[in-house]
């Protein structure tokens, strides 16, 4: 059997989700037998050429040239999946979407005119068709190997769409929101991390983005009853997945 040709692409991001591929220390050599990793700048010198059976895309779109490049990647790819909060939701850098770019530039760079960047950071799906999205900041490596194997045998990856609360219950972790009255994003956030923060005794801060049909408004009201201000509530949503939480919130209030 001919091995499917895989390309790994990076846009605006921290490299952590691509690193997840190299962090699959036990599986990586098997993966190399099953797949032909034909483009992956972080790990090989192989130049970009040809078509891909599947492209794995990390990072958000935040410059003009990236808008062109993502179309090129799409045209080269039979399937395209996005990995991580940047690629699926714009990432932490999407916080600029709700601010003024010129003030941002001035603050970081001595010669702000040299900086060419869009005023927004947006997910890949705002620009091209995406076949499958893997959420998380960073993604979970088991979810990545599940996705790769599912691709190989032609099935839908078995990745949960329900809320983190389910994962917490399964792990027998006492509810931080109800028992400790700490603002936890668990009820509106996708499962997938393995209930990490809550197992460390801290509230969920939303790495995996909003779950399907999340009722954000209701949780925000609950937070306000706990004594949080409106601004404090928004600041909880405005992290790595701010773009997605804000979108779901607006859609939910329609």
């Amino acid at each position, binding site marked *: 059997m001919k091995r499917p040709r895989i390309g790994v692409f*990076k846009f*605006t*991001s*921290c*490299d*952590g*989700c691509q*690193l*997840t591929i*190299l*962090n699959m*220390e*036990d599986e990586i*050599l098997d993966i190399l037998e099953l797949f032909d990793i034909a483009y992956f*700048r*972080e*790990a*090989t*010198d*192989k*130049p*970009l*050429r040809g078509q891909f059976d599947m492209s794995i895309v990390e990072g958000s779109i*935040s*410059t003009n*040239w990236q808008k062109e*490049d993502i179309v*090129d*990647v799409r045209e080269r790819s039979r399937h395209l999946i996005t990995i991580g909060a940047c690629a699926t939701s714009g*990432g*932490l850098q999407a*916080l*600029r979407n709700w*601010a003024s770019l010129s003030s*941002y*530039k001035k*603050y*970081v*760079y*001595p*010669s702000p005119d*040299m*900086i*060419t*960047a869009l005023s927004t*950071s947006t997910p890949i799906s705002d620009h091209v068709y995406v076949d499958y999205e893997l959420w998380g*900041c*960073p993604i979970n490596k088991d979810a990545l190997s599940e996705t790769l194997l599912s691709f190989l045998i032609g099935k839908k990856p078995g990745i949960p769409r329900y809320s983190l609360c389910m994962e917490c219950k399964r792990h027998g972790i006492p509810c931080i929101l109800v028992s400790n009255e700490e603002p936890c994003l668990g009820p509106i956030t996708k499962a997938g*991390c393995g209930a*990490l*923060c809550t*197992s*460390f*005794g*801290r509230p969920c*801060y939303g*790495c995996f983005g909003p779950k399907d049909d999340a009722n954000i408004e209701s949780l925000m009201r609950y937070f306000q009853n706990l004594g949080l201000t409106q601004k404090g509530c928004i*600041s909880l949503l405005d*992290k*790595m997945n701010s773009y997605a939480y804000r979108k779901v919130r607006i859609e939910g209030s329609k």
Partner: protein
Amino acid sequence: MHTGRCELKAASKIIKVDYLSRVEGEGGLVIEIKDGKIARLHVNIFEAPRFFESFLRGRPYSDVMDFTARICGICPVAYQMSSVHAIEKIFGIEVEKPIHELRRLLYCGEWIESHALHIYLLNGPDFFGIESAWASREYLPIAKKGLTFKRLGNKILDILGGRSVHPVSIRIGGFYKTPGKKVLAALLPELKRAYEESLKEIKWAAGLNFNDNSWNTEYVSLTHQDEYPMNHGSVASNKGLNMSMEKFIESVQEYQVEYSTALHSGIKRDSSVSPYIVGPVSRLNLNHDRLPSEIKNVIRESGISLPITNTQMGIIARSVELAYAFYEAIRIINGYDEPDKPFVDFEKGAGEAVWITEAPRGILIHRYELDDAGHVKSCTIIPPTSQNFGHMEADIYRFLQNNADKSEDFIKKESEKIIRSYDPCISCSVHVMKIEK
């Protein structure tokens, strides 16, 4: 898309690496040679800016460690460590010894993971003339060794931080939760095996082929009287620099050079500014007397002469530090008793502080100013790779002075190797560099 290509002209040649490989992040290299002279040389960064220092403004202090971790997926712990110590300094918090040691153990995990990645998967292939760690059968056992080390580093991070990329356990005053003694002790057999193995690897690295590139440049790192530096110390160099963290941030200045259009950082001295190098070579040169005698012996037996004066020997220094990180992890776990409370109580308040820690790639400088509510008023973040860019170019410049007449392919390959030996993390560096595209 960005693929490598060369442009040829009659009397001058332009050599371009459009997209560097086996480095973290996106950058390229442009060299122009006119009549045998270097007319232009610059490491070109096209990684998109992310404006961290802007959106940190106004955020509560408790968000800072989660946010800055996202600057780099390879060294998130370094960002958390520089942030947490700076903010604790503002609040006047002194953590207890077990917390200090656990944070050091967390850093050991990151050094192991990051160094093993660079030695075996990114830099190693250069010495075997192959395009990746899995490109040849002969290299595969070496790659596997690296993966075994790397897995163990990640395991430490998983236990202490929940996950290796963007750990979740660090908070102001300590940890959200500390591990039990038994959980850590279970790592010991594996760590001891890895430590024994890693000692042999120092000899392996020392036996690799290096270009002759000895020079008297300025090596900068933290130093500490009692320990090989990670989270504490003052800033020192082989040229007599010795100052507090606060003083050092004031003496770093950006400057321009004729052959490049990128801003560089260097150390201010009277009227001149000079480039310096941070990272494993600098750390080893300035701190090798703090290494355990067992590692010192292996260094001697391997024929490594200290200080290292060839900046391209980063892989040797990284191998020494890999062994040291295993040694240190074992020492910390052996002496560990779980603290009664994972964090100390504190009161937030306004203030300003600078803190520097040793990221795998070198010193990572953070400065924060907080208001009365504990919200960020302003901040500065200077990653190690931004500090190294100027030196990297100076290094390539030196190489070109003797090799400008060589073939494009040779120049391209060798220059890429020089850049790679610094283990640049362009994703980190981008938010203080000028962007060109």
